[in-house]
């Protein structure tokens, strides 16, 4: 297959020494293997995620994503914008929808952007990395690169919220999307069937501000994975990954559980299955080590 190029919106959490820097490492490794070139949007800014609404009204928030779209149109014309973070993808896509649905908003947004000499059209497709994998490659092609199938591993595909709603992946249902399970299968592992908490919420940003309420949700997500016999959880979302991984000690103390469930990204699984080293797969970024993946990567 010929090299594919995309206009890349990495987002704040993927930066060096940020909470999803390990995600970025594994994504880069996966993209190198698949001959994907990610052209970073120059000087991109934060999308304000789904918690920016307190301080930012509608137009300022739209202007944030519109600035990224305008910079992308300038630097990487004729390419799709691709985000790896669910919130980045959602905020940018929502902005595009609103601007195209309302000429006045488009006009006002451009008035604001003009303050920095920018102009937005908003005509580039805005896609999640998972869409690129499924739609531009497909499971068969993704499977061809597997060198070390993840045999004998049982993995719970935790899709979460914002990669799934309100836009989701084309052809998938909101209540039971199958793509993550299919990706797990393609990498040679065994997906947990009927994973009860597949599309449940981890609390999102409220894991910070309402920790008790959010940890009750997270506990159920992990418990359901254990109930399904999972060795680990896989997710496409940086917030899901962090929330479900890093509070397990606190949950254990509060609920008298013994959770120690690794939570990885789809790209982590793919990098290991593609025969890359633990470091290239970002396994050193696991707060709860994914021992089985380390073993496979070390072979």
């Amino acid at each position: 297959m010929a090299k594919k190029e995309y206009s890349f919106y990495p987002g704040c959490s993927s930066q060096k020494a940020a909470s999803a820097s390990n995600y970025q490492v594994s994504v880069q490794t996966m993209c190198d293997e698949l001959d994907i070139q990610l052209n970073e949007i120059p000087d991109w800014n934060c999308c304000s995620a789904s918690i920016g609404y307190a301080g930012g009204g509608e137009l300022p928030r739209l202007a944030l994503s519109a600035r990224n779209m305008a910079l992308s149109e300038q630097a990487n014309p004729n390419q799709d914008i691709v985000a790896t973070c669910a919130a980045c993808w959602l905020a940018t896509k929502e902005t595009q929808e609103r601007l195209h649905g309302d000429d006045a908003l488009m006009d006002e947004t451009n008035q604001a952007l003009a303050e920095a000499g920018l102009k937005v059209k908003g005509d580039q497709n805005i896609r999640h990395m998972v869409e690129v994998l499924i739609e531009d490659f497909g499971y068969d092609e993704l499977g061809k690169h597997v060198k070390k199938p993840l045999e004998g591993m049982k993995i719970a595909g935790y899709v979460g919220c914002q990669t799934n709603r309100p836009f989701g992946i084309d052809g998938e249902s909101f209540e039971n999307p199958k793509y993550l399970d299919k990706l797990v299968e393609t990498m040679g592992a065994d997906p947990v069937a009927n994973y009860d908490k597949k599309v449940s919420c981890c609390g999102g940003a409220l894991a910070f501000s309402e920790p008790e309420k959010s940890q009750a949700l997270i506990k159920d997500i992990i418990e359901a994975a254990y109930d399904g016999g999972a060795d680990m959880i896989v997710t496409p979302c940086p917030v899901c990954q962090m929330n479900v991984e890093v509070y397990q000690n606190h949950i254990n103390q509060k609920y008298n559980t013994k959770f120690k469930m690794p939570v990885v990204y789809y790209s982590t699984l793919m990098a290991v299955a593609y025969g890359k080293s633990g470091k290239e797969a970002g396994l050193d970024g696991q707060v709860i080590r994914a021992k089985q993946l380390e073993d496979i990567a070390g072979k």
Partner: protein
Amino acid sequence: MSNLNTAMVEKYRNDFLKEVEANVEEGDWVKMCMQCGVCSGSCPLGPHWEHPPQELFMMIRAGKRDEVLNSSSMWMCTSCYNCIARCPRGLPITHIMHGLAHYADRLGLAPKEQPTRKFANKFWDNLTKTGRVNELKLGLALYFMNGFGEGIKTALKMKDVGLGMVKTKRMSPMELLGGHKCKDAGGLQKILKKAREIELAKAEKFEG
């Protein structure tokens, strides 16, 4: 009572629905709610909401202005989008909740101590300073948002989480000394300032 709030009370008198339609993001959808309650049943933190979404919609139509704008309910929206995906009438409920929270905060009516209100404002301030979120500064601001004493307690309680993140290079103390930023943070701030001006001028003009 803030000046803006007094002006709005004066302007809309007893028509809170009209006020919401004019000033709240996606507020013109409120009247489309048919009170089925699917949103409330789908909400992950629903049990903690004093007034679930369909109740807020009815209260808006009933003119219960203070009860709605003082409510902590919509601040507990996790942005999971379940309500949007499931609403049979297609109301953008998540966005309306965000819009109500923003409007209440702008008028100075939102509950001051609501933790997500505080955190969300800190998030906005954090990102607009440099154009990118500084996770470490944001985390520390969150720990210390209820004063120094409680901040130390929270920081100690969260020590293991922080250490785990630092050990795996997913957090760095160096972020305190500047950290990631947009090169044209100045340009970004100009854009935001202009956007805010346009928005305020529009609210001013709206006669309903």
